[in-house]
């Protein structure tokens, strides 16, 4: 198969769900903005050159419903013939979109495709607006629909991840992110318009737009002592707290995938290529361990040793599962989530795959790292992982 490249990868800032910067911003707006930004940041292309939009979304209903991939394309002003679709594998949806779009281009079926992800966790709650677990199958395996935090507790108990270790991990995530925010290291972040309903003197609201250029979940004032005081959320006497869990977040991310022929024709300098992508299942009640299985499988498929990988973006759904996976695989913590992870920056479900890709590629470029791995755990008991190779 021919080569395909990621030529642009960008993301919106993350806004804390329900309270943060994008709580009043529709997901379609976040999506259409970020795909337009991706086009604008790519030299020598226009909207008319895009063939299709592949958009990951974990709960594609209500505000994110019908087919947000197509709606996003239309709202972004792409010509009618630019198609779009929505893809769902919960937390790896954005990465799934990028992997799938890459394959489509490599197969020669497309020249330029935008792949990305979007999630407004404010507007569409986790598990969706109308969760309806199968009333007979729940008698056998209710964990398939269970709360994610409960699985994090299970991982902590089953694999002895202490409260202190989780809090320390969370603290480090916050500190790395605080540092990156201060030093303006999030090169992949595009300042994004947010809708605000501003209360007027007469009690009515007026809709206004403001530009947001930072992730609002970062808390530089975090201390380990402060984290230690938080109460467990999911279990009496448990260890998983709001402080050592990922934040629920509204955000979007997008990447432009281009064939080698097109890259040459347009004279574009690509960033990286998706070298390999894989997924694997595990027990639903400990879904957080997914990366532990997905990353070795990926390495084996790609024929690359884990030691050759210079940077990792391993999604911090919960400190307990992230610690477990990193330790089990013997990954050097210094290479992981160097600008902080979801505990500080948020985990916008279907957008996370595209968001982490943008961050990883930006960091690989910055550090001149040849191989980078992105991985995450997935509800229902799965892991996904992708290997990126930096272009020279």
């Amino acid at each position, binding site marked *: 198969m021919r080569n395909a490249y990621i030529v642009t990868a960008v993301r919106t800032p993350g806004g804390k769900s329900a309270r943060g910067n994008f709580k009043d911003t529709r997901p379609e707006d976040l999506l259409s903005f970020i795909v337009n930004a991706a086009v604008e940041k790519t030299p020598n292309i226009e909207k008319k050159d895009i063939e299709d939009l592949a958009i990951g979304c974990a709960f594609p209903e209500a505000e994110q419903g019908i087919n947000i991939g197509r709606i996003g394309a239309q709202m972004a002003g792409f010509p009618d013939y630019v198609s779009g679709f929505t893809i769902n594998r919960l937390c790896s949806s954005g990465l799934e979109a990028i992997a799938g779009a890459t394959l489509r281009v490599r197969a020669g079926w497309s020249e330029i495709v935008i792949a990305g992800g979007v999630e407004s966790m404010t507007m569409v709650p986790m598990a969706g*607006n109308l969760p309806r677990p*199968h*009333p007979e199958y729940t008698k056998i395996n*209710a964990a398939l629909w*269970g709360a994610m935090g*409960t699985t994090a507790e299970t991982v902590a108990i089953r694999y002895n991840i202490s409260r202190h270790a989780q809090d320390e991990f969370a603290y480090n995530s916050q500190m790395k992110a605080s540092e990156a925010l201060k030093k303006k290291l999030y090169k992949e972040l595009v300042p994004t318009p947010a809708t605000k309903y501003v209360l007027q003197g007469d009690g009515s609201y007026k809709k206004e737009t403001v530009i947001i250029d930072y992730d609002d979940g970062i808390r530089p004032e975090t201390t380990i002592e402060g984290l230690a005081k938080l109460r467990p959320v999911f*279990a009496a*006497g448990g260890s998983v707290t709001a402080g050592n869990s990922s934040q629920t977040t509204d955000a979007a991310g997008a990447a432009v995938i281009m064939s080698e022929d097109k890259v040459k024709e347009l004279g574009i300098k690509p960033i990286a290529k998706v070298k390999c992508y894989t997924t694997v299942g595990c027990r639903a009640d400990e879904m957080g361990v997914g990366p532990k299985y997905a990353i070795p499988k990926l390495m084996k498929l790609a024929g690359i040793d884990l030691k050759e990988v210079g940077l990792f973006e391993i999604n911090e759904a919960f400190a307990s599962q992230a610690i477990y996976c990193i330790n089990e695989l013997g990954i050097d913590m210094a290479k992981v989530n160097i600008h902080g992870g979801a505990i500080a920056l948020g985990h916008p479900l279907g957008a996370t795959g595209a968001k982490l890709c943008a961050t990883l590629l930006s960091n690989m470029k910055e550090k001149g790292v040849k191989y980078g791995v992105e991985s995450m755990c997935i509800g229902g008991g799965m892991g996904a992982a992708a290997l990126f190779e930096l272009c020279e």
Partner: protein
Amino acid sequence: MNRKIRTAAVIGSGVMGGGIAALVASAGIKTLLLDIVPFDLTDEQKKNPKERNKIVTAGLDNILKSRPPLIMHKKDADLISIGNLEDDFEKLASCDWIVEVVVENLKIKRDLFAKIEKVRKKGAIVSSNTSGIPLKSMSEGLSDEFKQHFLGIHFFNPVRYMKLLEIIPGKETLPEVMKFMSDFGEKILGKGIVTAKDTPNFIGNRIGVQCMIKAMQLMVEEGLMIHEVDALLGPAVGRPATAIFKTSDLIGLDTVGHVSKNTYELVVDDEVRDSFLLPEFINKMIEKKLLGNKAKAGFYKSEKTPDNKKISKVINYNTLEYEDYPKPDFTCLAEVKKAKTLPDKLKAIVYADDKGAKYVWKAIAHGLVYAANRIPEISDTIIDIDNSMKWGYNYEMGPFETWDAIGVQKSVEKMEADGFKIPANVKEMLAAGISSFYKTEKGKIYYYDFASKGYIEYVVSSNIISLAQLKGNNKTVKDSKVASLIDLGDGVFCCEFHTKMNALNNDVTDFIHAALEYVDENGAGLVLGNQAGVFSAGADIVPVSMGAKEKKYSEIEYILKNIQNAVQKQRYAPFPVVAAPYGLTLGGGCEVCLGADRMVVHSELYMGLVEIGVGLIPSGGGCLNLWKKFVSSIPEAVTGVDLAKYFFPAFMAIVTAKVSTSAADARAIGFLGPKDRIVFNRDYLIGEAKKEVLKMIDEGYTPPVKRKLKIFGEAAQGMVDVEILNMQKGNYLSEHDAFLAKRIGYVMSGGEAATNSEIDEEVILKLEREAFIDFLKEEKTIARIDHMLKTGKPLRN
């Protein structure tokens, strides 16, 4: 003038001020809470509004954090706005009632009132919550118009829970203002009103504190121990279980010390002024900061044994060391235990002659004499003194009722023999051949009036109906050992339960059936109500336990069917049925209310379906009717509603045995619907329920048409499974809880039925019964029932 209180202001955000603000806001009135700017601010802090409001902010915080809660529902806190006396004083100009609750210092109060006079709007009422400072000194030098609208309004702590409200007119206070505040206090704030004179500590605390300190002095004289006094002067004589010393620990010894000293100084003419002097050991305790519960050491102290068990120790007043103490063993207490009524208990104890009884006799006799000597000094009537002690000190009987209970003639003879000086007014009454302070004739209560030397009818607000009086006046139309049907007039009848804790059993159910039939024949409507300590603690589980052990399942099913039929019968009766619950309304008691057409409830309502605590499911239509209460609020025009949003709160209320902390909370949980009405004064409840029945009849009552009920169906059960998994994994539910919860979900969602479908009500009733019987076959349910019967507490197994 048509006076209204739109906005109230409370100045002072301490325990009392905060409590008053919380009550007024809970009654739905906008309240401005003010306190001083802290004295010790730096120049920088002085510019910061947050720092300036620090004291009042902390006061509001304490209101919101208080346990038991002072505010009835957390959203009522929205009605309280805060400020400080420097920046926000002008806001008092818009207030209709200004309550002063600042430190007990005459100069500070006078300065404050002088300032208030300048800003208050004409006609605004100003009151002081003082207990020690004469009103006349506080208002001295202020304008006539101010004095006409100035009065003492004295609440008791904790404000929300204590019924007594003493209202004290100043010399110039307008009668119209007195009348208005009495009505307002009674109707809107739900209090029991006593009009007091402007004398030190008014009525409640004057009598109450004398009683308390005299009891302490007598203890030392008679050589009793602290825990012995508490055992003797508690429920045995109709007073709270905290009796003397536990109450002091609760109040704080420093406060007791302050009150005693303050009263001693003010009551210079008291014939027994010394009875306000604390025994010396208590002053030593105050010096040593052994101040009671807030200091974690007072007359009692709880300690932990090496094996981590909590034990209570009591101080030995000779050594001031804490010691273990046994349960006091007085023969008189054993006699009291045998007595059924309070008068019998009192007689059993005051006329016995062991050491304990002799002490009780002296303590009570001193109190009776002191009370009689206070008329007309602090009050003109015995009624106001008795009410003050019942409402402000939770005595079951006031001094004069107590006196009647032990026999006035007999006790006076004993007093004389023991060297007591009998009050002249009592002597005179006995000499005139009158030997009781109260009498009841034709259901009317009369009390003896010392001034006119004759009986006067005790007239209460026309809103108050007393079932006891009606029964005394031959208004009982149907009677049994467990319940009565009482004629409330105008064709309305009241079905009153009177079992222990008003527990429901099959006899009560039979009576409800009979009452419904009677009203159908002879009446226009029915009130389900009573006037005891609790509305109903739920079904009596003794017969259930016995039936289960003997595996008499068909008999149990019959009992369940009987109560379900009664609940359905009342729901579909051709006349209105209004339930009037108050206080504890649990399990079966709650189910009976949920089945009524409407509820008129007291603001203090602790309602819940708590059956899961004994391993059971509400099976008197509770699952059906709570669900119905939730879904019946959906207008027919609304289709395709997500029933999960309705199902889960209803389901969780049962699965977590949620009990409301107030009527407002019961409404928030969903036990009360939009047509159910909250009444603040408990004495009004039966009257208001009767009014509701009459109103419904007047509006043209037709019974509801029985139609199929909207149910969530099977989809609920998948959701329940997942929710239960989450809760179980989180250690919030035991395995047995999970088992019970899943079945409860099955019942409430209509069993094996299509999602978002409709079903006959009887199907859910049948599912309730089947689940109940199946639960009784579980060992762990039996263990829960046994544990509850043995300990009175639920078992988590």
